[in-house]
C-alpha cells in the first residue's frame, strides 16, 4: 500500500535553552523532543486529524512535514519519494504539492499586501501561470468570495473571510495535500460549519487530502476519516475515526472524548486531573500515568508497546478501556 504521505519514526528536537550557562555551553542541557517518534500514513483524498492538548507536539509535527522545522530522526515520504531522512531528495518535490493552512486567519496574511498580491504569490514563487490575475479570480470564486476582495488588505476582512483567503492561497497550486493547523480555532460555530463544508467540498471535487491539527473533537468526528491522538510528542492511539469514537482504548483518548462531550445535564468532575507534564521532565514508564485514573503498577516503570489491530487501530496502553480483565495486558 502506498500512501500519499508516510511518516516513519519522526522526531523533532529543540535545544532546551537553559539560561546563560546553557547558552555559553557551560552546562549543556539535553534537547527537548517535541515530536518523539511518530509514524502515520495518510491516503490520498482523505482527512487525517491529529488531536491532543496544547504542547502535545501536533503543530510541530505539521511544521516538520513542510520543512519549517528541521527533522532530527525518521523519514517522511511523499508519493513514495523521500523528502526527509536518509536519501532524501529535499523539499522541492513537496513545495508545490503540499500547502499549509495556518491557524491565525488574519495573522498568516501579510498585512501590507492586498489579497491579490497574497494569492498571486504562489504562482510567482514557482514561476507558473501566465496570468496570475486570472488565477486570483479563479481562486476567489473557488472559496466563495466576490472578485472585488482582490483589492482588500487583510485588516479589511472579517475572520471568516480571512480564513477563506487562507484556504484560497493553500489551494493555489492545486496541492495534493493541505496541512491545516487549527483551521477552526476562534471561529464561531456558524462560520466553522461553512469552512468545514468548504474543505469537504474541495476534497470531493479536487481530491485533496487534509492533515488537520485540532483540539476540537466534534470537528474531528464529522470530517476526519482517520485520527491520531498525540501526547507529549507521541501517538498514543491511532485509527479510523468512527472506531476510536465508538470505543476508545487508550485512557487518554477516553478522557479527551469525555471532556469534549456536550452534556445536557451537568457532568461530574473532570476525567483527568492536572496538566500536560513538561517535555523536560518526561514521566517514566507510560508518560500518561500521573494523570491516569487507571494506572497499574507497571505503568509507572514500563513504557507500553504498540498494540495494533489490523490497520483499523493501534494504541499504547497497559490497561486499555473497553477490554475485559483489567490488569491483563491486552496485546503483546
Amino acid at each position, binding site marked *: 500500500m502506498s500512501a500519499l504521505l508516510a511518516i516513519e519514526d519522526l522526531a523533532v528536537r529543540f535545544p532546551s535553552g537553559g539560561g546563560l550557562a546553557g547558552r555559553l555551553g557551560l552546562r549543556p542541557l539535553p534537547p527537548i523532543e517535541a515530536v518523539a517518534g511518530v509514524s502515520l500514513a495518510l491516503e490520498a483524498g482523505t482527512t487525517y486529524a491529529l488531536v491532543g492538548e496544547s504542547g502535545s507536539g501536533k503543530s510541530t509535527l505539521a*511544521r516538520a512535514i*513542510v*520543512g*519549517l522545522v528541521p527533522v532530527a530522526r525518521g523519514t517522511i515520504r511523499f508519493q513514495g519519494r523521500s523528502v526527509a531522512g536518509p536519501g532524501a531528495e529535499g*523539499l522541492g518535490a513537496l*513545495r*508545490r504539492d503540499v*500547502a*499549509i493552512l*495556518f*491557524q*491565525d*486567519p*488574519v*495573522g*498568516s*496574511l*501579510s*498585512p*501590507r*499586501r492586498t489579497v491579490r*498580491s497574497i494569492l498571486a*504569490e*504562489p504562482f510567482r*514563487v*514557482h514561476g507558473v501561470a501566465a496570468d496570475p490575475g486570472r488565477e486570483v479570480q479563479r481562486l476567489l470564486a473557488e472559496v466563495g468570495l466576490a472578485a472585488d476582495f482582490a483589492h482588500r488588505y487583510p*485588516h*479589511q476582512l472579517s*475572520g471568516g473571510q480571512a480564513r477563506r483567503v487562507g484556504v484560497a*492561497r493553500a489551494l493555489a497550486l492545486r496541492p495534493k495535500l493541505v496541512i491545516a493547523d*487549527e483551521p477552526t*480555532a*476562534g*471561529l*464561531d460555530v456558524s462560520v466553522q460549519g461553512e469552512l468545514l463544508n468548504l474543505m469537504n467540498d474541495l476534497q470531493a471535487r479536487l481530491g485533496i487530502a487534509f492533515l488537520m491539527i485540532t483540539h476540537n473533537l466534534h470537528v474531528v468526528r464529522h470530517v476526519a476519516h482517520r485520527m491520531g491522538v498525540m501526547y507529549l510528542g507521541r501517538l498514543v492511539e491511532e485509527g479510523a475515526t468512527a472506531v476510536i469514537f465508538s470505543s476508545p482504548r487508550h485512557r487518554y483518548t477516553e478522557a479527551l472524548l469525555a471532556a469534549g462531550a456536550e452534556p445536557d445535564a451537568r457532568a461530574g468532575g473532570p476525567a483527568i486531573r492536572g496538566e500536560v507534564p513538561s517535555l523536560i521532565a518526561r514521566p517514566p514508564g507510560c508518560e500518561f500515568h500521573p494523570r491516569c485514573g487507571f494506572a497499574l503498577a507497571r505503568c509507572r516503570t514500563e513504557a507500553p508497546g504498540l498494540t495494533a489491530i489490523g490497520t483499523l487501530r493501534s494504541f499504547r496502553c497497559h490497561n486499555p478501556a473497553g477490554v475485559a480483565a483489567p490488569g491483563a495486558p491486552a496485546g503483546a
Partner: protein
Amino acid sequence: MSAPASDDAAAAAGGRAPRLAGLRAVVADPMGALGLVMVVVVIAAALLADLSPHNPVAMLPRERFADPGLVHWLGTDHLGRDLFTRVLHGARIALLVALSATAISLAGGLVLGMAAGYGPRWLDSALLLVFDALRSFPTVMLALALVTLTGPSLKAVVAVVVIATLPGYGRVVRAQTMVLRHAEFVLAARALGAPAPRVLALDVMPNLIGPLLILVSMDIPVVITIEAGMSFLGLGVRPPTPSWGTILNDGYAFIRESPWPAIAGGLPIVAATLGFTFLGETLRDRFDPRLRREG
C-alpha cells in the same frame, strides 16, 4: 495570540484610509501642525532659493554689514553677500545632506538589520559587534578623524552622519525582523518555498518602513545640526558655498560689526531642528508610543 471570538464592534472602526487619517491626526496636534509648517517652510526655501535676485556668493564690498531692508531682507555679511539668499541656499545644503545621509543610513540599516535578524546566528553576532563598535565612537572625534584623512567636504559630512546613525537603524530593524520572523505570514511565505530575499523584501520590509520613517523624521534635525556644526568648525562645506554653519561662523567672527549675520545663520538651524523634532515626535506619539530611541 490567535483571534478568539470576542466582539469587535469597536475594532471595526479602524481601517479606512489610514494615511489621510494620519495626516489629519498630525495637523490636529498644535505641536505637529507647527512642526509641519516649519518643515514646509524649510523645504520651500530650499526649492525656491534660485528665485532670489541675489547671487549667494557675489561680493559687494560697498554693502558690507547692511541692516535688513527692502533690498537685503536679512542684511548682508562681512563680504556684502545677501544673507537671505545665503540662508535659502544653506537650506538646500542642509536638506541635501540630511536626506542623502539618512537615505543611505536607512538603506544600509535595513539591509544589515534584516540580515542580522533573519540570517544565521553567527551573522547576527558579527553585525551586532559592528553596530556597537560604530556606535561607541563619539561623533566629533569621528568627524575630526575622517576629515584628517579626506579633507573637509560634503561627502565627509555625509559619511560621518551615516556612520553615526546607521547602527541605530540597524538595531531597530534587527529587533523588528526577529519578531516578524516568527509571524505566521512569514512562515506562510516560507512554507510556499519563497527564497529569503523575496520574503524579506515583500513580507518583512513593508512592515518595518512605518516605524523607521518615524525614526528618520526624528533623526533629520540631528543630521542638520551635525552638518551645521561640522561646517562651523571648518570640517564640512568649504567657503564660499553657503551653509548655515558657515554663515553662523562668519557672523560669529564679526558679531561686533553686525549681529545680523549670526542671527541669519542661527535662526534657520533652530527653526529647522525644532520643526523636524516637533513633527517627528508627533508622528511617534500618534503611531507608535512604544518606539523610543534606545541608548
